[in-house]
């Protein structure tokens, strides 16, 4: 059953990662320019400069950040610095200039670099893992159950659960998380920052920290010297005259600086705390290592003292990018198959699995299944069973300064149900939307249509405004059913 769901979010960028990529180049004799790996990258990223620059899909806020920084600093250098250089010291514009360049450098470095994306598993790897999972779980007794795909490891005495990512088909390393906005698993995932237009992860965390730290200094610097300028002028010619001389820009400059100071300085303070305790934003939000969870709960990654933690985070070795975006695709290299199964069955022509689209399809289909109960059962289960429910096991899509969401993971205490939380953030920076439909996996021919949503979890439901009506209806239907 094909639900033609219009996807307002999808834009033309998808055409660059097209179905062509799934067919390997069979004959190397054909005269074809070898394609670079970034051109067939399965995640939702944008690449520029022939793969040298890598950013998230939504970059509007990043340009805003750039404009704010450049314009504010530009106004400062143009109008305040001449006066301050002459009446105070020329060191003022010099230091300001150095700070400004450092801020820009670290911002661009954060935004353009690979945050530590984990490449998706090759088909052989995925098959091998599936086999191992099946062996580990044994054959399910009766019916079709999807066992929870987690693996436990003991790290420095602390038990850590590694979760299986259905999109990337890997067991995520500890501290890695799947970003739903970029559709990638990122190592040591901190958060997705719309202000820099990229995820913040293992490889660019230090640049991000340096950026917000230097930006705090810059904003405080500009703020302080603008005030100094006004004060100096008002000593000479009176306060009102001083304001009259430069009427328009002071309020704007001061206002921007004032708000930036508090939010940026606050953010720097927060990240300084995170670095000194060797935690990620994700872990802090979820309280993974807080002592409230248990007396024996501690952070296994911390080195014990603040100095070592800071040095490790900021001065440690910089791991290389794992995705090799500028490498050429070899004809015999196994390409990680984008999870296309569900999409093609639902009739979409895109070979990419778009989290929202597939999710909507699954939810809508399940709503219809559960509502109608009988006649569709014979047809649907075949479709449903062969594609595992897509989880976007993600963390947020949020504003940096407003604390980002952690993963609203429902406890997988009921082993016969895999309840996955799906985050579908649609707007960056403004709202935190997430949808946690409780999905019962549909067994072929054995759909317990009586009480499919018999859980012990509370269903949280947010209705994002930007969802299309079909999705809203189906979701409302699910909520109604779950409340029965």
């Amino acid at each position, binding site marked *: 059953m094909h639900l033609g769901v219009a996807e307002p979010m999808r834009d033309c960028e998808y055409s660059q990662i097209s179905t062509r990529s799934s067919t390997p180049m069979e004959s190397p004799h054909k005269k074809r320019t070898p394609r670079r790996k970034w051109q067939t990258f399965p995640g939702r990223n944008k690449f520029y400069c022939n793969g040298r620059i890598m950013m998230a899909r939504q970059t509007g806020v990043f340009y805003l950040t750039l404009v704010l920084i450049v314009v504010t600093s530009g106004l400062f250098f143009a109008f305040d610095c001449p006066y301050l250089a002459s009446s105070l010291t020329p060191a003022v514009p010099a230091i300001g200039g150095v700070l400004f360049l450092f801020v820009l450098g670290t911002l661009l470095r954060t935004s353009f670099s690979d945050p530590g994306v984990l490449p998706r598993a090759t088909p*052989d790897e995925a098959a091998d893992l599936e086999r191992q999972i099946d062996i580990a779980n044994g054959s399910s007794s009766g019916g079709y159950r999807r066992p929870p795909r987690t693996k436990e490891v003991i790290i*420095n005495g602390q038990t850590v659960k590694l979760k299986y990512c259905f999109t990337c088909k890997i067991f995520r390393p*500890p501290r890695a998380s799947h970003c739903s906005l970029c559709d990638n698993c990122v190592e040591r995932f901190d958060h997705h920052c719309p202000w820099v237009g990229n995820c913040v992860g293992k490889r660019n965390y230090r640049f991000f920290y340096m950026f917000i730290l230097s930006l705090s200094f810059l904003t405080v610097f500009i703020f302080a010297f603008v005030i100094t300028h006004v004060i100096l002028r008002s000593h000479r010619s009176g306060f009102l005259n001083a304001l009259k001389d430069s009427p328009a820009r002071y309020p704007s400059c001061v206002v921007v600086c004032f708000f930036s100071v508090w939010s940026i300085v606050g953010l720097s303070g927060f990240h300084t705390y995170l670095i000194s305790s060797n935690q990620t934003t994700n872990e802090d939000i979820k309280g993974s290592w807080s002592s409230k969870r248990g007396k024996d709960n501690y952070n296994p990654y911390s080195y014990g003292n603040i100095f070592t933690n800071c040095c490790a985070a900021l*001065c440690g*070795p910089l791991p290389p990018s794992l995705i090799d975006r500028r490498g050429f695709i070899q004809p015999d290299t196994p390409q990680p198959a984008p999870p296309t199964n569900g999409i093609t069955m639902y009739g979409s022509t895109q070979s990419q699995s778009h989290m929202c689209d597939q999710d909507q399809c699954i939810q809508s289909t399940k709503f219809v299944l559960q509502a109608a109960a009988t006649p569709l059962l014979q047809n649907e289960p075949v479709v449903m069973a062969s594609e595992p429910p897509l989880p976007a096991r993600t963390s947020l899509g949020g504003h940096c300064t407003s604390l980002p969401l952690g993963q609203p993971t429902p406890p997988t205490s009921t082993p016969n149900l895999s309840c996955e939380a799906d985050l579908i953030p649609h707007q960056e920076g403004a709202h935190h939307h997430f949808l946690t439909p409780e999905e019962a996996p549909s067994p072929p021919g054995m759909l317990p249509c009586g009480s499919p949503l018999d859980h012990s979890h509370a269903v949280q439901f947010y209705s994002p405004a930007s969802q299309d009506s079909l999705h809203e209806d189906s979701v409302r239907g699910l909520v109604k059913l779950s409340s029965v």
Partner: protein
Amino acid sequence: MATEFHNLQELRHSASLATKVFIQRDYSEGTICKFQTKFPSELDSRIERTLFEDTVKTLNTFYAEAEKIGGQSYLEGCLACATAYIIFLCMETRYEKVLKKISKYIQEQNEKIYAPRGLLITDPIERGMRVIEISIFEDRGSSGSSSSSSSTSSSSGR
């Protein structure tokens, strides 16, 4: 005795890929790159346990060296910070240097030890440092065995 593969080229041309074994990461010491030294059962008939373990242990030491947080890495980090990270455009980081050493080591191991036994190790960096992929090849020319997916049948077919 079956055909011995004396170099990797020969291996690729005259053998067919039977199956692949994946050595997963060992996270018991945190997020550092380390692979499990558990000997997979599929390789039981193909290679001695000690040789395999030596290879994996050496790889683990290389990775530990790359990720070591010590004097040199601090120096590199501070220098990079001081130059607003522009220095990374011109200089190769220590990690990258060690990765080159690793690729050379793997190639050498393949040529000397693994290819003669019909095996091939893929550099973990090509698999996103998730796994060490060992491809098991079967001799295409050996009688009685076709491109079956079982690796053990090949040894009996010889």
